[in-house]
C-alpha cells in the first residue's frame, strides 16, 4: 500500500487541524531525526510526524490516520532495541515527547499518574521525597519513557525481586486503533472484566497508544547492601548464583559480567573491578534492616564457598554506584573494544547457564566472532554482546549468524527469544522458532479485536499479519455439524 502525494497532503492538513501546525513535521530533514530507534541498523523515514500535547490530540491524530487508512507508529524516547518504533514509510509517527507531565504522585495510594512521555527516572525522582519510588529500572531509565516501558513490558536489574513493568502498572488510558479513548484498570486493583490491561502491557504499540499511565509506587527500602564478588570463571559465578537461590534468598538483583565485558567496562568507565577476574557478580539485597542483615552474611559466605577470590562490600551509596557503573555502562562500553556490536537479548532457565555459556564460547570460536557476556544472572536473561567489524568482509554476516544461533540455544533450552527488549521489527522472524502457527494465530485474534484494520504499528511482533476479516457472528442457516461434514454420522 502506498500513499499518494494528495492523500498525504490531506492527511497532513488533518493532523495540523488536530494538533496545530507547529506539532506536525513534514519536512524531510526534520523527519529524518526520527528514522530509527535504538536499533540503528533499520532506518525508515516516516511520511509525517505528529507531536500531540494531550490524550485528546492523540485521539484526533489516530482518527485522522484511520480516516486516511494510514498506518501509525507510537514513539516515546526511541531507545527501544528491537526496532519497535521504526516508522512506517507511508504512515504517521506519533511521538509522545510533548506529553511529559507527572499528573499526580499519591503516596497514600501508592500510585503515580503520568503522561506517557514521562521519563522513567522522573517518576522515582518525584516520589523519592515522599519515601517511595518506581521499581522497574531499565538501564536506559534516564532517557526512556513510561509509555515505551509499558509497550515493551520493560525490565531492569531489580526485576528479579520486584517484577517487570506489567507488575507495576495498574491502569492505562489508551487511544484504541479506532481512535477511541478507553480506560483500563486504575488506582484500585482487579477491575472487573477481562484483564485487557495485562494484555496491553508488552503489546509493543500494536494495540493502541497509551496516553496516561497509573503506576504502583514501592516503598524505598530501609536497607540496601551490595557486594561485588570476583571469580576465576563464569561457571563459578553461576554456581554461586545457584547456591544463593537454592538457599531461599531472593536478592533484589544478581548481575554477572564475563572477562571480555569487564575489560570493556574498565576501558570505558574505569570501574576498577578486581584485576584478573574471569567473572564478577554484583549481588544486591534490600528490604527491612533485620532481614537484609541476616541474609547478607549468608550470601557472602555462599560466594566464598563457590570460590570467589575477592569480595568487596559497598560501604556507602558512592561505592554502590561504582559497582553498578561498570554493569550499567556495559552495552555502550563494548564500543571501546569493537567498532560494531549487536546487543542480543535472550532468556534461558537459569540452571542452564553453564552449558549455554560454554556453547556460546564454542560458537564464538568457530566463527571467529568475539562475544562479551553481560546478564541478569538471577533470572537467566542473557545479553550477549556480539562484537564485529563491519569493515571486514563477511564479519557482519557471521556476527548475525552467531547472534541468531544464540537465540536458537535459548529456545532449545526452553527459554525465550527476548526477555526485555521486545520483538519489534528485529525479531518478528524468530517468533516461529518459539511459537507454533496456531500460537501466533491465537495472539493475533487479540490484535484483530483491537485493530481489525491493522493500522497500529504494522509489521512488528508477528512475522505474517493475520487477515482479520469481518467480525464473525453467530452462524445461521446450515447446521454447523452439517457444514463440517458430520451430519451423515447421525
Amino acid at each position, binding site marked *: 500500500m502506498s500513499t499518494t502525494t494528495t492523500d498525504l497532503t490531506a492527511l497532513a492538513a488533518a493532523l495540523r487541524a488536530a494538533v496545530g501546525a507547529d506539532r506536525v513535521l513534514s519536512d524531510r530533514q526534520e523527519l529524518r531525526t526520527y528514522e530509527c530507534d535504538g536499533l540503528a541498523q533499520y532506518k525508515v523515514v516516516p511520511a509525517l510526524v505528529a507531536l500531540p500535547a494531550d490524550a485528546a490530540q492523540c485521539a484526533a491524530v489516530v482518527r485522522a490516520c484511520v480516516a486516511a487508512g494510514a498506518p501509525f507508529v507510537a514513539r516515546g524516547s526511541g531507545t527501544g532495541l528491537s526496532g519497535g518504533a521504526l516508522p512506517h514509510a507511508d504512515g504517521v509517527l506519533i511521538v509522545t515527547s510533548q506529553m511529559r507531565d507527572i499528573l499526580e504522585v*499519591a503516596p*497514600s*495510594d*501508592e500510585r503515580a499518574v503520568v503522561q506517557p512521555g514521562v521519563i522513567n527516572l522522573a517518576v522515582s525522582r518525584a516520589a523519592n521525597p515522599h519515601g517511595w519510588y518506581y521499581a522497574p529500572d531499565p538501564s536506559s531509565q534516564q532517557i526512556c519513557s513510561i509509555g515505551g516501558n509499558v509497550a515493551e*513490558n520493560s525490565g531492569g536489574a531489580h*526485576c528479579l525481586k520486584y*517484577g517487570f513493568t506489567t507488575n507495576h502498572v495498574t491502569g492505562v488510558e489508551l487511544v484504541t486503533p479506532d481512535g477511541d479513548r*478507553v480506560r483500563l*484498570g486504575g*488506582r*484500585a*486493583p*482487579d477491575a*472487573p*472484566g*477481562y*484483564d*485487557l490491561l*495485562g*494484555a496491553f502491557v*508488552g503489546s509493543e504499540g500494536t494495540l493502541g497508544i497509551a496516553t496516561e499511565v497509573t503506576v504502583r509506587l514501592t*516503598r524505598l527500602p530501609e536497607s540496601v547492601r551490595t557486594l561485588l564478588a570476583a571469580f576465576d570463571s563464569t561457571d563459578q559465578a553461576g554456581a554461586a548464583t545457584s547456591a544463593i537461590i537454592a538457599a*531461599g534468598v531472593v536478592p533484589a538483583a544478581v548481575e554477572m559480567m564475563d572477562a571480555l565485558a569487564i575489560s570493556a567496562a574498565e576501558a570505558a568507565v574505569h570501574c576498577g573491578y578486581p584485576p584478573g577476574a574471569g567473572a564478577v557478580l554484583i549481588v544486591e539485597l534490600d528490604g*527491612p534492616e*533485620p*532481614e537484609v542483615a*541476616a541474609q547478607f552474611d549468608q550470601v557472602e559466605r555462599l560466594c566464598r564457598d563457590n570460590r570467589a577470590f575477592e569480595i568487596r562490600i559497598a560501604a556507602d551509596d558512592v561505592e554502590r554506584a561504582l559497582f553498578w557503573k561498570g554493569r550499567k555502562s556495559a552495552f555502550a562500553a563494548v564500543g571501546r573494544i569493537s567498532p560494531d556490536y549487536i546487543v542480543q537479548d535472550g*532468556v534461558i*532457565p*537459569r540452571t542452564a547457564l553453564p552449558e549455554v555459556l560454554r556453547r556460546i564460547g564454542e560458537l564464538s570460536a568457530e566463527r571467529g566472532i568475539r562475544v562479551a557476556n553481560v546478564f541478569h544472572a538471577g*533470572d537467566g*536473561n542473557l545479553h550477549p554482546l556480539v562484537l564485529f567489524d563491519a569493515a571486514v568482509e563477511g564479519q557482519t554476516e557471521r556476527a548475525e549468524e552467531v547472534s541468531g544461533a544464540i537465540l536458537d540455544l535459548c529456545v532449545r533450552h526452553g*527459554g*525465550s527469544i*527476548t*526477555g526485555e527488549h521486545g*520483538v519489534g521489527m528485529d525479531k518478528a522472524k524468530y*517468533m516461529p522458532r*518459539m*511459537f*507454533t502457527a*496456531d*500460537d501466533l*494465530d491465537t*495472539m493475533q*485474534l*487479540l*490484535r484483530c*479485536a*483491537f485493530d481489525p484494520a491493522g493500522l497500529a504499528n504494522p509489521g512488528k511482533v508477528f512475522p505474517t499479519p493475520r487477515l482479520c476479516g469481518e*467480525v*464473525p457472528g*453467530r*452462524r445461521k442457516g446450515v*447446521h*454447523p*455439524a452439517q457444514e*463440517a461434514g*458430520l451430519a451423515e454420522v*447421525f
Partner: protein
Amino acid sequence: MPADAILDRLRAAADGTTTTDGRHTDGLPSQAAAGRTDNPDGPEPVRPAGEQDAIAGVPARYVAMPRDTAQAAALLRAAAALDLAVTFRGGGTKQDWASPPRRLDLIVDTTALAGVVEHAAGDLITVVRAGTGLDALAAALAAAGQQLALDAPLPGGTVGGAVATNASGPRRMLYGTARDLLIGVTLVRADGVVAHAGGKVVKNVAGYDLGKLVTGAYGTLGLVTECAFRLHPLPAAAAYVTRRVDDAAEAGRLAGTVRAAQLVPAALEVDAPAGGGAAVTVLLEGTPAGVAARVEAAARLLGTDATAADQAPEGWGRYPWRDGDTGLKLTAALSGVPRLLADARAAADRHGVPLALRGSAGVGVLHAGVPGTAEPERVAGLVDALRAATAAVAGHAVVLTAPPTVRDRVDLWGPVDGLALMRRVKQRFDPDARLAPGRFVGGI
C-alpha cells in the same frame, strides 16, 4: 439429533488422540497421569450428565473428562462441529459464582487433566496441568522447600479454577496474584485449536501475554489446560501480629500506618465480623532473626495490646461468607480503605442487613458477606450502596456469588470500563458464543 449419537461423537473424539508438538510440554505424560490412560477404572472420558452436574441450576447434557491437552482439543473440536455450548469445571468450588450459563450442553471437567508436568526447583518454576488441586501442588512443591504463592480462599480448588476466577488471598500483598505468577499457558480455543503463550522462564516478553487475558475470564475465552508458574521459596519463618480495635474504619486506618512503615508485610488484613469489633493482622515472613525483629516493630506500631502468634487467626484467608450467602469483592484506592470500611458498615446498618467484611486492606481488596437468609430486596439495596461506596474510592463492587433471589435483583458486575473492547475480544475467540455464554461481564 439423538442424544446418544452426540455422545458417540464425543466419545469417538476422545479416543486415540496423540500429541506431537515437541516444542511444548503438553501431552507429555505427567507423573500423576502416567499409566492412567489404559486404566479401566479411570473416569470415563465422556458420560451423560447427571442432576449433580447442573451449573447454578442449569442442567447439562454431557460431561467430558479429558486427560491431556490433545484429548481436550479433540473434544472441543467435536463440540464446535456439533454446536454444543460448553462450560469448564475444575474442582467445582465456584460453579455458583457469576451468572449461570445461558446455554449448556457439555461440561468439560478438568479433574482428570491433572499432575505436575515439571518442577524445575533450581529455576523456581513449575508446569502443571489445569486440573491439579492447589493442595496437591502445594504438597509436591513443599518437598523442595518451595511454593506457588497463591492463597486459595476455598478449599478443594484446582489450579485452572484459581486462574479462571482470578482467586487471591492475603499474601497477594507480597507475591501478587495469579496474573503475576503465571508465566506460561496452554489453552484450547473454542474451535479446538491448541495455543500457547508465554513460556517457562520468568522473564519473557515474546508475543502477547495471553495468560493475563485468560486469568479471571471465567472460561469464556478458552480452556486452560496447562499453566507454568513462577515459584517462591517457602519462608524460613512466619508470624502473625494482631491488634483488636472497636470498629472497621479504625482497623483500616491502622493498616495505613503499617503500609507507611518499613515492615514489608507478606499480608495486611482486616477482619470486621457482622457482630461488631474488628482486627488488623500483619503477616511477616522471612528469616527467623528478621521476623523476630519485625514482629517487635509491628507490635510497637500497632499498639501495646497487639499479640503475636505462629498460627493464622481464625478465618484467615477465607471468604467471610458460606455457601448460599451473598459474597462480594470490594476494591478501593488504598487511601480510601478506611472510608470504604466505614461506608460499608453504615450502609449495612441503614439497610438492616448483617455484613461481614474481611480482606486485604494492604492492597485495597475487601470481601463482604451477607447471610443467605437476608431479605433479597434489602440485599439488592445494600449492593447499590456498596457500589456507590466503592466508586467514591475509585474501586468496584462485584457480586461474586449470590442466591438466585438476590442474583435476579442485582447487576453482578456493575460498570465495566472497556466493555466494548471486551466484547470484541470475545467475538474473536468464541464467535458462536458457545463457551459459558452469559457468565461474564455484560452478558459475555
